[in-house]
């Protein structure tokens, strides 16, 4: 991953097995936190508060993270280090929040936990359009992207499609 940290590889797709999702995710987040860069953590599965708590419990520097949270419903008070998107249906809003995290908060890495969750809310082609547009945005800003997917099955069509737009695929579901 050294070429990723150095910026030679911009977009990495991490395919995690469901049974190891939490464990692998902790490793990824620890590795990201250790780099000292400002990270945009897009949490689609769990509330930002929960993610923040876990990062802190693992000894990570929470201050390095800026969160985009689609899991916490609208109506909650937004903290300083988070944009509450409020709903995973709101892809346009999520796109605006990613731009805000990059341009206004100086995030140089964007971590999506997890892209596959969007399939619960949107058809696969819409998810793919969003991912493609987001990757284009990240590249345009020189921001690195870590896209986590936790597919229901191996050889998931969406994983294959997202892989096409990524610079590298690290598939932890095989071997």
């Amino acid at each position, binding site marked *: 991953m050294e070429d990723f940290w150095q910026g030679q590889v911009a977009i990495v797709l991490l395919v995690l097995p469901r049974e190891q999702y939490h464990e692998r995710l902790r490793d990824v987040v620890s590795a990201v936190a250790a780099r000292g860069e400002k990270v945009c953590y897009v949490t689609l599965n769990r509330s930002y508060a929960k993610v923040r708590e876990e990062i802190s419990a693992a000894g990570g520097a929470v201050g390095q993270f800026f969160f985009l949270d689609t899991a916490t419903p609208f109506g909650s008070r937004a903290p300083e280090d988070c944009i509450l998107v*409020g709903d995973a249906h709101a892809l346009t809003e999520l796109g605006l929040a990613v731009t805000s995290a990059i341009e206004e908060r100086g995030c140089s890495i964007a971590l999506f936990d997890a892209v596959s969750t969007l399939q619960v809310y949107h058809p696969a082609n819409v998810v793919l*359009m*969003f991912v493609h547009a987001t990757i284009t945005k990240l590249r345009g800003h020189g921001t690195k992207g870590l896209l986590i997917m936790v597919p229901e099955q191996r050889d998931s069509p969406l994983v294959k499609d997202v892989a096409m737009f990524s610079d590298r695929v690290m598939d932890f579901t095989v071997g």
Partner: protein
Amino acid sequence: MVSRVPTGIPGLDELIGGGLVQKSTTIVEGGPGSGKSIFCMQFLVAGLLQGESCLFISFEETTEHVLQDLRDFPWDLQKSVDSGKLQVTYYTPEQVNQLLETGGGLIHDQLEGMNARRLVIDSLTAFSLLYPRELERRRALFSLFEAVRRWGCTSLMTLESDPEREERRALSTEFEADSVILLYNQKREHLRERSLEVLKMRGSAHTNRILPMKITSSGILVYPKESVF
């Protein structure tokens, strides 16, 4: 070289050649709550900030209601009204119809007295309701547009319609205007997302994309580099 008038809507002018063509007529069209009145007042505020005088004609709400509805924005409209730079005038559509029959003199005098550069008419729908028959309505709207052009301001006129409806057909009013801007408030499952489209703009190379739009505490923002999903 075409003179252009900034809209005052951040993100929009770069998509329409730098602003609205001076003295052009623009329809701002959308459903209830889509932001038409906010858009129009924000356009006038842009003029006020440049020292221009502006006139807001309402066919549906009194002056007090117009100012009250927009009081939460940081525009201090009352101050502009008190200084005379902004006039908010309520006419019933019947009064306007009478004015048009006499050549629109009173409104023209008002505009000339203020040396107004920007005009908003809110809304064409209320005006149209006076005419139950299609042919009469078209003639009346044609007269209104003719008058607005004679008055020589850069003008916005609101129109209530649902731009999302599949069976939507181009309204005759849209053919009269130089420009048409559509404001959407689309339902996505259990939420709504706002967006904007420049349907038509004579004399301007304009974007054909539908763009995300927000109504914030400062007014309307358009996001030219973002996508609607």
